[in-house]
């Protein structure tokens, strides 16, 4: 019996010893792989974003951008996230939708801003999408669904525009798997609580969308986020783990922001950019408000 045990120990030690020694060899240069992957992801993000903005125009209105940036800053600073890496793009599209792209791009459709009743609801949706970014769900989904070699082909410009458009369509109109959606929900609740924003607003947003029996085609975000009722309930449960002292996100009336979204025209956009000086005050005002909010959070 003793002989068996000794020989078993030698066998186990030799197996794990050999594995351990071989593990010391650098078969894969992780730094080079990471660098290559980061460069490809950056190009992939740019290409997919470009294919989206080819069909739906990106809104460059400074006021609206400042609103989204202020929400992003509030969310990031509450949870000490690197805010600068997340690039928020407002895209003119009537669909109620927001989604994350590779390389930390976050696309928000104007339809979402028009549909949301409060900026806190937009913050909830953005926190959920930032969750997908922070947990690297986008690249995991793309790698799983279309394969690494195809992603490199798109990033290298070898795959053609149609595949890039199809990838963009997939990211904007299909859900992540159930576990990843729940993970992003949990992240959103944690982030909102850290930013002193009540997660109840995100839950309300879910409930409101789920209660719409005659769901119009524009309500894309809800169709890509299934089990809405259940998840809204889950958010309320998670919320109980945090002590909240909610503070308003914006100093501006939300209806005014929505009017700006509705009345937004391309000409205004051009004027906005050309006549930046004439409107500089209002832009600065908005930025100062953002700063003020941030200070309150800190």
């Amino acid at each position: 019996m003793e002989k068996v045990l000794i020989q078993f120990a030698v066998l186990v030690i030799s197996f794990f010893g050999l594995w351990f020694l071989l593990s010391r060899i650098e078969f894969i240069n992780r730094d080079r792989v990471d660098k290559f992957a980061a460069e490809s992801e950056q190009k992939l993000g740019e290409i997919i974003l470009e294919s989206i903005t080819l069909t739906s125009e990106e809104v460059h209105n400074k006021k609206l951008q400042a609103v989204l940036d202020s929400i992003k800053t509030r969310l990031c600073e509450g949870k000490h996230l690197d805010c600068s890496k997340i690039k928020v793009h407002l895209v003119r599209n009537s669909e109620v939708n927001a989604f994350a792209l590779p390389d930390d791009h976050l696309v928000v459709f104007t339809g979402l801003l028009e549909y949301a009743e409060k900026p806190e609801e937009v913050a909830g949706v953005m926190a959920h999408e930032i969750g997908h970014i922070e947990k690297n769900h986008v690249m995991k989904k793309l790698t799983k669904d279309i394969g690494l070699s195809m992603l490199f082909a798109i990033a290298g410009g070898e795959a053609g525009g149609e595949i890039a458009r199809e990838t963009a369509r997939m990211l904007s109109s299909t859900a992540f798997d159930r576990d990843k959606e729940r993970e992003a929900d949990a992240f959103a609740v944690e982030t909102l609580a850290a930013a002193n924003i009540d997660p109840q607003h995100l839950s309300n947003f879910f409930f409101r969308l789920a209660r719409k029996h005659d769901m119009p085609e524009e309500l894309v975000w809800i169709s890509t986020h299934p089990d809405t009722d259940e998840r809204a309930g889950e958010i309320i449960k998670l919320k109980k783990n945090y002590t909240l002292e909610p503070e308003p996100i914006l100093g501006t009336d939300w209806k005014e922001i929505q009017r700006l979204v509705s009345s937004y025209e391309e000409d205004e956009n051009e004027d906005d950019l050309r006549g930046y000086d004439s409107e500089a005050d209002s832009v600065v005002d908005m930025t100062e408000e953002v700063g003020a909010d941030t200070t309150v959070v800190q």
Partner: protein
Amino acid sequence: MAQVSEFAYRPDDYESEKASNSYLMSVVAVIAGLPLPIINLLATLFFYFGNRKGTFFVRWHCTQALLSQATVLCMNSAGFAWTMSIIFGDVTLTNPYIAYMITVVLFNISEFIATVYAAIVTRKGQHVSFWFFGPLTALICKD
């Protein structure tokens, strides 16, 4: 790794062939079952159950072949699961994974060589005992 010794009695030609076949079974299964490690064990297991009422010499070598296969199966299964999670899951390709696969391949090759050697030796009517599996078989398999 494999030691040739005298058995309790001198097996006849029929017994030697049966004992040798128990090793050949796992060798053939290794070739057929490389992508699915369970096939190796199943083949050896069926052969074992087919001969468990055989003579002592045949039973002994069937048991040794089965035990060595079961160990390799555990190593291969872990490697198989790890590979599947890299292909279909969220797991990334790492140095420990490659090291593990090399280790498993080396152990598989060693087991393969030992098995072929045992098949040849037992066919000649000689008794062969593997490192660890031999003494373990001696504990399990009684006359």
